[in-house]
């Protein structure tokens, strides 16, 4: 451990620590512009100069470039160093446009701070200022090049760190320019991070342009719930509205960055259309009245037809508190539910993932960065869990190989292998890969039940032989690697894959490798739902029961089946049959129109709460503000009303858990305080997994990980892995799958007007062979007919996907729900080219 002296204070640091960081550990903040812990040292800005008095280096040197070494004596206040830093600031300000008053960075600008701290108050330079034209970079990032201080952070982040190429440095000398070759929307889904890392106001947040100053914002630690990774964020609130969301550093999860879906996905919270008042049959009523009515009706139905006639549906976007309150309510009343899963397949996939994620296999995003080989099965990071891309990229930069086994046209900003096979064939291929990889010794040492699974892997089929070379190469790479991570999706994969991935991981561990398992789940709190859903039926099953008249009342808690249920006509029909539909939500979901009783709930920004991400990490979001109509909407842009009132307008909504507890009680006298603590106490008591849950005030910032292992309840046999399904190959059959997209499919972020501008037009992906056979060319419009309806959609043709597969995004502006199921098989004559204007 090097020991050095900085400004007369002694400190021990880890080997490899830069002097600038060693000083920071002592509380001495050496100025910096180009240095960034995630991007490393490059020595470009020269503002971190300090004087080395003793040790291996002498004189004025850059503290970001030099590793702390034993015997160093460093002065940050040495006259020569201070004078040099002062000059650096003066140089950087030579061409500064002096527009802080109209710059959105003002108030949290590193350049402002350093200029003031460096004592550079008056301008000496008498020459003219260099100027630059700005570029239009799309709807998220505003460009103002005159403010640049050439720290190269943006180009380093954009190209080196993330791997995207369309923004970088142009020109030389004092003319260097940071931008794109041609103006246009940035291609990276991580572009918003430019705003965070640029130390000046070159890149500023466009959606919150000219809205306010950092010092006026209430800044609260929060979480992103736009995918299952649960990145840490900090939200800025002002005048009852979230204005901006930025990345919050997290060692284990997202590091310094977040993706654009997360950054701009919060606008649902202040949507003008957001329902803010309780309703009965579409008429606004008081909260109490709604609760009372709902309670009476539910009790009546439960008395008339038994408690099983009431079913409740929970949500993977609800907090753990809400999920627990719902479980408790169902338990108390004997209702069916909580239902979380659309169909058996989704239930199996998610629960297997949660159950297989043993403590020794679970890895965080940060651990993924350390891997030297990554095998991704049925996962499309950019579209399903964007921040995983950056983790993979870091691993790849360090030399890791990345291989995907997936039917989709995987797009990543770096090189990787892609075995594109149809969804049905994936398990077979994975099983074969496993067989190629595992060595004889390990096989011999297997437990009998494990051996049985191994032996059941069928021998060659034509599918395997056509991929044999690739599989051999991959197997070889895996055998050569030391630190492996298997990433496994749960969306497009068949029911056996999550378990096979875990099986593979366990065998690799037996081979002496360090193995991690990293699942992707279908929602921010899908893990919590997996823990709390027990033996509840699937949503499809509940619909059957409603049709059969067995279920008469349905409680939808922050769950919008119109968004995900793949058979829209059936859903519409069945919901009409209910005697009571009770809806609780903070979104303007369509079910509100059908609801008999509606209760507005609070978002995570207003209610806070715990969420369990896909690695079983419980994380906490704090309360950012109290809710109510944002002032900007309340005053229509003009000044706020000049009247006093002691109620926040539009603040009737309550946390969903509050509503659920009020429903559980026999009268309305439920206190508003302490309810959350009660629920958590119940959770800790009822589910031993949560016994580790620390109190709110001692909650670690990176959360705590619970890995349930086999505590999860399953309804099916444990040894279902024995026979991998073999794809039935038929030349005129195509598998159709629906998939997630970065922008346009996820229910919360699609409510963001800014992300809507980022969405691509919905399209169906088709392999070029299939397109040629069907005589379809790029951009044609086709009608895909299924048993339940027709979807008409433009075609995108590509070669890097599995042939024989159709891929359709679950785009919010596409009626994909007419397909009837999220995975279907269509024969080729069900796909027909249509003219542009032809209605379907």
């Amino acid at each position, binding site marked *: 451990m090097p020991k050095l002296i900085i400004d007369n204070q002694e400190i021990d640091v880890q080997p490899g620590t830069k002097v600038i960081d060693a000083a920071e550990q002592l509380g001495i903040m050496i100025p910096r512009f180009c240095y960034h812990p995630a991007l490393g040292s490059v020595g470009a800005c020269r503002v971190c100069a300090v004087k080395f008095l003793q040790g291996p280096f002498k004189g004025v040197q850059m503290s970001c470039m030099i590793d702390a070494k034993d015997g160093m004596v460093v002065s940050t206040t040495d006259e020569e160093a201070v004078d040099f830093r002062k000059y650096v600031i003066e140089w950087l300000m030579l061409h500064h446009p002096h527009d802080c008053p109209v710059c959105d960075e003002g108030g949290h600008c590193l350049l402002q701070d350093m200029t003031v701290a460096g004592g550079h108050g008056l301008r000496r330079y008498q020459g003219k200022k260099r100027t630059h034209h700005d570029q239009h970079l799309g709807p998220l990032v505003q460009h103002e090049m005159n403010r640049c201080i050439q720290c190269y952070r943006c180009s380093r982040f954009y190209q080196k760190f993330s791997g995207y190429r369309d923004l970088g440095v142009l020109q030389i*000398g*004092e003319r260097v320019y940071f931008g794109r070759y041609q103006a246009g929307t940035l291609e990276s889904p991580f572009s918003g991070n430019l705003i965070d890392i640029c130390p000046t106001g070159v890149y500023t947040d466009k959606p919150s342009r000219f809205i306010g100053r950092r010092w006026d914002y209430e800044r609260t630690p929060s979480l992103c719930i736009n995918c299952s990774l649960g990145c840490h964020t900090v939200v800025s609130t002002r005048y009852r509205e979230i204005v901006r969301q930025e990345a919050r550093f997290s060692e284990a999860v997202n590091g310094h960055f977040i993706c654009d879906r997360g950054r701009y996905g919060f606008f649902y919270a202040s949507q003008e259309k957001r329902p803010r008042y309780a309703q009965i049959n579409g008429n606004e009523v008081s909260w109490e009245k709604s609760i009372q009515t709902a309670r009476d009706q539910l009790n009546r139905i439960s008395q008339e037809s038994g408690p099983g006639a009431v079913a409740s549906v929970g949500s993977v976007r609800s907090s753990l508190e809400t999920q627990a309150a719902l479980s408790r309510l169902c338990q108390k009343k004997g209702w069916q539910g909580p239902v979380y899963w659309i169909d058996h397949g989704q239930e199996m996939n998610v629960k297997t993932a949660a159950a297989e994620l043993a403590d020794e296999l679970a890895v965080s995003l940060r651990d993924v960065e350390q891997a030297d080989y990554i095998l991704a099965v049925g996962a499309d990071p950019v579209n399903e869990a964007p921040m995983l891309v950056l983790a993979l990229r870091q691993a790849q930069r360090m030399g890791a190989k990345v291989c995907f086994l997936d039917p989709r046209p995987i797009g990543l900003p770096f090189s990787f292998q892609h075995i594109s096979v149809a969804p049905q064939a994936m398990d077979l291929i994975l099983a074969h890969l496993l067989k190629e990889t595992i060595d004889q010794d390990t096989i011999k040492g297997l437990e009998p039940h494990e051996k049985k699974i191994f032996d059941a892997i069928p021998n060659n089929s034509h599918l395997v032989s056509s991929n044999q070379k690739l599989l051999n190469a991959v197997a070889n790479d895996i055998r050569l690697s030391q630190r492996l991570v298997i990433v496994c999706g749960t969306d497009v994969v068949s029911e056996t894959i999550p378990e096979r991935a875990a099986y593979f991981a366990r065998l690799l561990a037996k081979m002496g490798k360090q193995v991690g398992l990293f699942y992707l789940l279908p929602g921010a709190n899908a893990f919590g739902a997996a823990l709390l859903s027990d033996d509840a039926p699937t949503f499809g099953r509940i619909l059957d029961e409603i049709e059969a008249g067995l279920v008469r009342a349905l409680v939808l808690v922050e769950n919008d089946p119109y968004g995900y249920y793949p058979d829209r006509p059936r859903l519409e029909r069945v919901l009409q049959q209910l005697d009571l539909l009770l809806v609780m939500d903070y979104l303007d979901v369509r079910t509100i129109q059908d609801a008999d009783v509606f209760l507005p709930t609070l978002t995570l920004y207003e209610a806070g709460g715990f969420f369990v991400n896909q690695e079983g990490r419980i994380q906490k979001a704090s309360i950012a503000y109290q809710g109510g109509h944002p002032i900007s909407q309340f005053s229509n842009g003009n000044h706020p009303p000049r009247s006093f009132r002691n109620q926040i307008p539009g603040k009737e909504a309550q946390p969903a858990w509050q509503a659920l507890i009020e429903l559980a009680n026999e009268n309305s006298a439920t206190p508003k305080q302490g309810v959350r603590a009660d629920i958590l106490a119940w959770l800790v008591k009822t589910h031993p997994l949560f016994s580790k849950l620390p109190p709110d005030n001692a909650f670690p910032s990176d959360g705590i990980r619970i890995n349930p292992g086999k505590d999860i309840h399953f309804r099916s046999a444990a040894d279902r892995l024995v026979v991998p399904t073999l794809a039935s190959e038929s030349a005129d059959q195509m598998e159709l799958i629906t998939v997630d997209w970065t922008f346009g499919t996820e229910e919360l972020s699609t409510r963001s007007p800014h992300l809507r501008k980022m969405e691509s037009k919905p399209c169906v992906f088709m392999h070029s062979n299939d397109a040629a056979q069907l005589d379809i060319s790029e951009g044609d419009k086709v009608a895909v007919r299924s048993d339940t309806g027709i979807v008409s959609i433009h075609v995108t043709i590509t070669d890097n996907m599995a042939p024989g597969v159709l891929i359709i995004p679950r785009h919010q502006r596409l009626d994909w729900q007419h397909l009837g199921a999220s995975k279907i098989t269509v024969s080729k004559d069900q796909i027909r080219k249509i003219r542009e204007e032809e209605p379907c």
Partner: protein
Amino acid sequence: MGVRLSEIIEVHAGGMRDGAEFKACLPGGASTAFLPGEFYDIEMDFETMRKAGHRLGTGAIMVFDQKTCLVAATLNLTEFFARESCGWCTPCREGFPYMRDLLWRIEHGQGQEEFISILSQMCRHLWNSYCAFAPGGVAPIESLLAYFEDEVHAHIEKKKCPFNDK
């Protein structure tokens, strides 16, 4: 190697032009310091030059006579360095254009006394640049201030270039 500067000029280069007197030379291209008259007989090898505090650089010798304004010559050289900087680090990228501006002002009669100290401080600070380009680039300015400070003062006092009668 080891040939005297005077010999190079007088024998190998054919001597100064008629009426021209040796004032200074750049012994090794644009990024070496001016050699003033007192070094006229110096031996042109690495060792001797190094002892004299000079460098042989590229060995491309550029000679200036007594009618040449060295401020203008330095301005010209600095112009070159300002354009050639790659733009990576701040001192070089911004420092050369700044010094170009100051030298231009001195040469064109807008000079102020404090420019001299700014120039010399900046020359020192440019040694803390990322690569060796900047320390080389400041060599002419450093030597201008070291050997020909009077000439610079004259520019500032007269509010014009003394070599330019217009």
